[in-house]
């Protein structure tokens, strides 16, 4: 009993334990329900899974199932990011406990209520548990806002290396606060139409209505909601990585106002989709460009820092270009976290901007199914790239060192980028080859995408197995992490 209680306390009371549980559950959900997807159907795996687990796949309810599945995964990711925030930033202990416990109960209720309701018949009690779970996550977000309040005297910054106002209000904390505020309000843009659609099964996927000229207010609200939530999760990720890197100095001072303004303008743009769809797009472009500039400054800062530290470790004062590159690539986890942000420009932002600019000239000349392929690829890549960045941070927190760190980091970078690059080419294939001659390109990109994603899942599984076996040791890493009240970060150490 004592053995179980000790592990339970680690997994559900310590920050690192909570993150581990979140990642493990997100991995399990993705792996299990991924077996119901297209390629798995071709290999016969879907049929076997459906039969063994008695899954009830009603054709008309596919979109509803996916909406619930996406929300379950999103709630886990939001919880993981929240644990990281409460572990990295100073806040009152009682608030931290309240936030972490509420959001944990929330995402677990969403998971264990939502998925049975979506995939195993419609017991309405499960739907109620799912909605209660989402509400708890929302409530935890409200408490987080209160805990983050950047104008409290105790959080004033005195170190000039970090961006702050004349009165010492920390701009980084303000950026977290702005992002969290925008997230809370944006959640309502999904919750209100969600309530109107009622049971969750008379729903639609936003990518299916992009060419519909007249959309209802609720349709527009949902379209705005899904865009902003993913963008805010990505901005939150960038802020967390900044804390991990001890982001400071001139780049920090330039980046933080941009993160604040970018989050708010971007959010406002997506909210304005409802009343002013055309004008809203221009505001969204403006907000995302500002936020992306903030992320660019983080990349510049972190790469300069990695080079500086790498050279110093090798005892080199002023290295050659090759030595600087070698120093930059020395730690794949720290390099990879920001490299993925750069790569995002090629596979997400660049593609998105090009599509928007050439929409009528090129993409609306194609059939709708080809345009839809770009849209779904676009946000799948954004979501998964963000997840790989968070995984790199977790691998560092978990204490991955030496060769294992090198293998994990590089396999994650190379194979995730291989997959995302292949998917990008797949979704833009009409620019490269006519439909009649597309098959070799489809075959190659599908194969490379599958190889990339399977490798990423295997690497992630290896990390999870390593941490699982650690739980069976009497004095494993878990016992040390149990006693760590905060995530190790320069700010906490200060």
């Amino acid at each position, binding site marked *: 009993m004592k053995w179980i209680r000790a592990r339970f306390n680690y997994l559900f009371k310590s920050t690192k334990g909570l993150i581990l549980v979140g990642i493990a559950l997100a991995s399990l959900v993705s792996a299990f329900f991924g077996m119901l997807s297209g390629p798995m159907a*071709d290999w016969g795996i879907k049929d076997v899974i459906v039969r063994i687990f008695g899954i009830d796949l009603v054709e*008309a309810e596919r979109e509803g199932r996916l909406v619930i599945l996406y929300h379950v995964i999103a709630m886990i990711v939001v919880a993981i990011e929240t644990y990281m925030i409460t572990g990295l930033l100073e806040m009152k202990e009682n608030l931290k406990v309240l936030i972490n416990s509420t959001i944990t109960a929330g995402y677990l209720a969403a998971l264990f209520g939502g998925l049975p309701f979506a995939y195993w018949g419609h017991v309405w009690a499960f739907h109620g548990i799912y909605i209660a779970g989402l509400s708890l996550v929302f409530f935890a977000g409200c408490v987080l806002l209160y805990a983050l309040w950047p104008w409290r005297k105790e959080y004033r910054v005195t170190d000039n290396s970090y961006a702050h106002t004349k009165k010492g209000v920390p701009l980084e904390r303000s950026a977290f606060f702005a992002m969290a505020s925008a997230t809370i309000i944006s959640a309502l843009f999904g919750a209100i139409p969600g309530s109107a659609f009622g049971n969750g099964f008379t729903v639609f996927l936003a990518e299916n209505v992009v060419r519909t000229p007249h959309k209802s207010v609720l349709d527009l609200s949902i379209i705005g909601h899904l865009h902003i939530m993913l963008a805010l999760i990505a901005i939150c990720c960038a802020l967390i990585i900044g804390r991990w890197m001890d982001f400071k100095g001139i780049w920090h001072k330039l980046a933080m106002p941009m993160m604040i303004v970018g989050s708010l303008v971007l959010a406002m743009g997506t909210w304005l989709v409802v009343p002013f769809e055309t004008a809203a797009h221009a505001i969204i472009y403006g907000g995302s460009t500002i936020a992306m500039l903030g992320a660019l400054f983080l990349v510049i800062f972190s790469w300069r820092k990695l080079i500086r530290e790498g050279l110093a470790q090798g005892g080199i004062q002023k290295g050659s270009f090759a030595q600087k590159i070698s120093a930059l690539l020395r730690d794949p986890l720290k390099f990879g976290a920001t490299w993925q942000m750069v790569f995002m420009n090629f596979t997400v932002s660049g593609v998105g901007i090009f599509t928007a600019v050439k929409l009528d000239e090129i993409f609306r000349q194609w059939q*709708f*199914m080809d345009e839809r392929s770009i849209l779904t690829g676009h946000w799948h890549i954004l979501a998964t790239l963000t997840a790989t960045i968070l995984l790199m941070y977790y691998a560092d927190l978990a204490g991955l060192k030496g060769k294992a760190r090198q293998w994990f980091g590089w396999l994650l970078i190379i194979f995730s980028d291989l997959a995302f690059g292949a998917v990008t080419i797949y979704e833009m294939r009409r620019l490269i080859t*006519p*439909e009649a*001659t597309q098959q070799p390109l489809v*075959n190659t990109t599908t194969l490379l995408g599958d190889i990339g994603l399977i490798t990423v899942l295997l690497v992630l599984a290896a990390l999870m197995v390593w941490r699982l076996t650690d739980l069976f040791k009497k004095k494993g890493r878990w016992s040390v992490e149990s006693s760590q009240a905060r995530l190790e970060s320069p700010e906490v150490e200060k």
Partner: protein
Amino acid sequence: MKKLLLCLVASFLLASCKPVDLNAAVPVFDTAVDPESWAKIPSGEFLKGQFNEEAVIEYDYEMMVTDVTNAQYAAFLNEALASNDAIKDNKLIVGPYPGDTFNGYRHEEEIPAGNYLYIDIIDPALRLNFDGNTFSAKAGYENHPMTMVSWFGARAYCEYYGWRLPSEVEWEKAARGTDGRPFPWGEKITRNIANFTFSRDPFEDMSAYGSNTTPVGFYNGKSYAGYQTLNNASPYGLYDMAGNVWQWTGNVYPDQHYRYMRGGSKNLYENTLRVWVTNNATPTFTSPAVGFRCARSGQE
């Protein structure tokens, strides 16, 4: 071991990069389904759309049992060119269209009266031969659905014979009957019941030309060279109302120039074969995965 693995991956990638041969020989099968036949769809209520809204069509109408074939379309072109209902304009076959009302709505493109594309004669994906005077179907493709045809070309075919393209609602009722089923044959989709991306039919060669069309009415329960099909006829006896090729429908909606298609295609996953799923494109769009069939009598 590492080298062997690398060689295997490289060989696989090279094999998958093999160029497409659009003139590769295809198997020839007689499905015994007559593409000249029509099915009657009686008036009355049915369940429409993904969420089974109650709808009614207050007239009887007929729809072609199969998609229009290459052979049928070649015959039409020969007749229409002779009667000047279709015009050869350099490398295109075009024909007249009276134009749409244009409201200048966001993303809407104007379609004024004029001549519009039916087919592009020199498109390598076209399954028709043209000797300068006469069209004929390419060998082996006579009973495959006519593809690479624009909405204008599909409409012209139907109207030439006094018929019309079905409206979306007519198409859907013909596909699913009155019981709200998601597929023309029932509730579930399996590999051998329609031509979609996983059908593994004798016309699929992923390393050569990819997922190809199947002859119209191919999935009728017969066995073809060891490939046992299941019968995919709709409640009214229409074949291929899911899979093989998308089918143009006739509606022209206000504030947009897009024309809508139904039925899913050979290139796509099974969820796009559900009867309520729509695709759309500009009316001049052509594709190896888009065809059509006609409706007649009755009116919406």
